[in-house]
């Protein structure tokens, strides 16, 4: 499979339908790369005309801004917007809620206006339009699965149902944690916490959250954010449950259910 870049599209004089914004985690983190690969597998299978920025993509500046470094955020935003506008991008899909939030809510006032869609919503649309047909190749039918709400998808942008609809399309037995939807507990990674040691406390946030997920008895913890995924995977490992319980992104769940 070849993953086309914007530069290639430009050279051929064509324009893709969507830009897939991969994000730093999706590009560099080994676990998150699997989510990226799953998502492009779906795009490829459905036959969507998409492209990535490749080496031209840069950090959106989210962790810089939320840690307090506005200068660095503005530098990154400036450069990204130059590139995105240079390619005349209209529609962006991303698998990272943090990138999604910045691109959707924070770039417009800096001159970057795009239709920005998170992959949970995008996948739901593909399912609704019948472009993605779920089979049970993943063996998720009737399986106990819980969904962890990402803060930047849920509270920050009011997207609670799209990822759940994707799971419903697989006929999974969705079990909710007590703290779900707008009451959902953070995984502990947001606000640039991913890049530093947690402050002193009684327990780690990701352990508190993954314990709650484990207590549902779910065999799969579904997430829709690469950072949540890392945090919850660490939490599951901490309880030595990694052989019984998987932490999977909804894109991975869909990719596994596409049939052979």
């Amino acid at each position, binding site marked *: *499979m070849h993953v086309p870049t914007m530069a290639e599209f430009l050279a051929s004089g064509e324009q893709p339908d969507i830009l897939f914004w991969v994000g730093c985690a999706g590009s*560099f983190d080994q676990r998150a790369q699997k989510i990226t690969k799953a998502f492009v597998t779906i795009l490829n299978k459905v036959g969507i005309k998409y492209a990535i920025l490749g080496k031209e993509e840069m950090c959106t500046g989210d962790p810089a801004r939320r840690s307090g470094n506005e200068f660095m955020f503005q530098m990154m935003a400036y450069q990204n917007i130059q590139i995105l506008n240079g390619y005349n991008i209209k529609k962006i899909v991303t698998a990272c809620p943090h990138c999604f939030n910045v691109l959707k809510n924070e770039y417009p006032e800096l001159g970057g206006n795009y239709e920005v869609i998170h992959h949970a919503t995008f996948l739901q649309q593909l399912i609704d339009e019948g472009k993605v047909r779920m089979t049970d190749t993943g063996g998720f039918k009737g399986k106990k699965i819980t969904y962890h709400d990402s803060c930047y998808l849920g509270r920050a942008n009011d997207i609670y149902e799209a990822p759940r609809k994707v799971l419903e399309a697989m006929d999974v037995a969705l079990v909710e944690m007590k703290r779900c939807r707008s009451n959902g507990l953070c995984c502990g990674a947001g606000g640039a916490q991913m890049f530093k040691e947690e402050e002193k406390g009684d327990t780690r946030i990701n352990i508190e959250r993954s314990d709650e997920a484990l207590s549902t008895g779910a065999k799969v913890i579904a997430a829709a954010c690469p950072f949540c995924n890392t945090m919850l995977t660490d939490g599951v490992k901490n309880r030595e449950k990694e052989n019984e319980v998987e932490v999977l992104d909804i894109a991975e769940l869909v990719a596994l259910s596409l049939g052979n």
Partner: protein
Amino acid sequence: MQYIQQAAFLILAAYSIWLFRSNILQIKKNIFLGREEDLSDQSSLRWRNVVLLALGQKKMFRNPTVAIMHFIIYAGFIIINIEVLEIILDGITGWHRIFLTPLGSLYSLLINFFELLAVGVIGVCIIFFARRNILKLKRFMSKDLDGWPRSDANYILIAEIILMSLFLIMNASDRALQIQGNEHYHETGNFIVSGIIAPLFKNFSSAQLIAIERSCWWLHIVGIFAFLNYLPYSKHLHIMLAFPNAYYSRLEASGKMHNMQNVQNEVKYMMQPELAPTGDAQPMKFGAKDVMDLSWKSLLDAYSCTECGRCSTACPANQTGKLLSPRKIMMDTRDRLQEVGENIKKNGEFKDDGKTLLNDYISVEELRACTTCNACVQECPVSINPLDIILELRRSLIMEDSNAPQEWNAMFGNIENNFAPWKLSPDDRDKWTEDLKN
């Protein structure tokens, strides 16, 4: 005697209203010490928030049992104020039950309703008092509330119980006087609650009953005037400020951070020097170190906070034992703002007192624990945004004080040099595509 009572009432009413007004003006002045922020757009959506969030208490209904109890107190408080209007008019005119004749049968319907509400308020206040002092709910036991804030909450509940009891006893003694045939006390018939209490007074002399009735009347109205002037010093100010706070609450996605136009411009001039204005650059301030650097909305937030602690209960950092408590952020902001306001009042302008909100009230460790998850913002029943304050203080820490943990400095370096928060080569950004080639 009658005229002395009327004069005393007028003086008391005028003084307490004047005092209340000057306290509220001081609070308004303090709020406008904050940075300007235009929140006047989309007025229909804003009014909708006032109706749903303030009047309808929509967020309270995330916990329906508590919401209903709170609503009883709130409705009691607002509706019984109609009765207070009568009390005030009686006080001024020297009349007794001035609304009785004009309202006719509607009058007893209203008073019956007020009496039922009064019983409801007493009941709920007792339950709320028990939740704080006997059941000791976790969010009320937090050390955020040590000292005055915990007493404040109890004083309010006790005051409400006393005020409502006075209202009921006043009506009961009034009824007892009617039964004895005292002319000044017009026949009203039995009201639903005081009618049950009235027979207990049957052996009291007329003079005793008048003393009881007058004492209740005076204590009730003095209590209300005292309560009015207690509000500006109390968490209970939320009964007023919840309304403007809902109106001015932010309407955009809660994940969006405030843009810093000055930094945006700086970066633009750096990238495109031809756009830079000529002449010396103005000195800039980044983020917030003290209350004056915060938006006026954050300061209105601080005065609107009723210290219920729903924010801190939902906060992932607080739940896992970190120092951060969004409620404390709001309480600190109000305390510091009060201090700054008094400083200005005393000195004519703000005289440096060697203190700032950052460090002297809110510590770096608290700020560093925030995951920006918006749970506190989501929870707040009166539309307070503690996250705004946290993020503005964080900006000051990083951009004014260069105060960042080592790991964040490394992350900044990586973003600058590798365009990603990790120390990995930008050339490898699309390396994952190679694995898909076969």
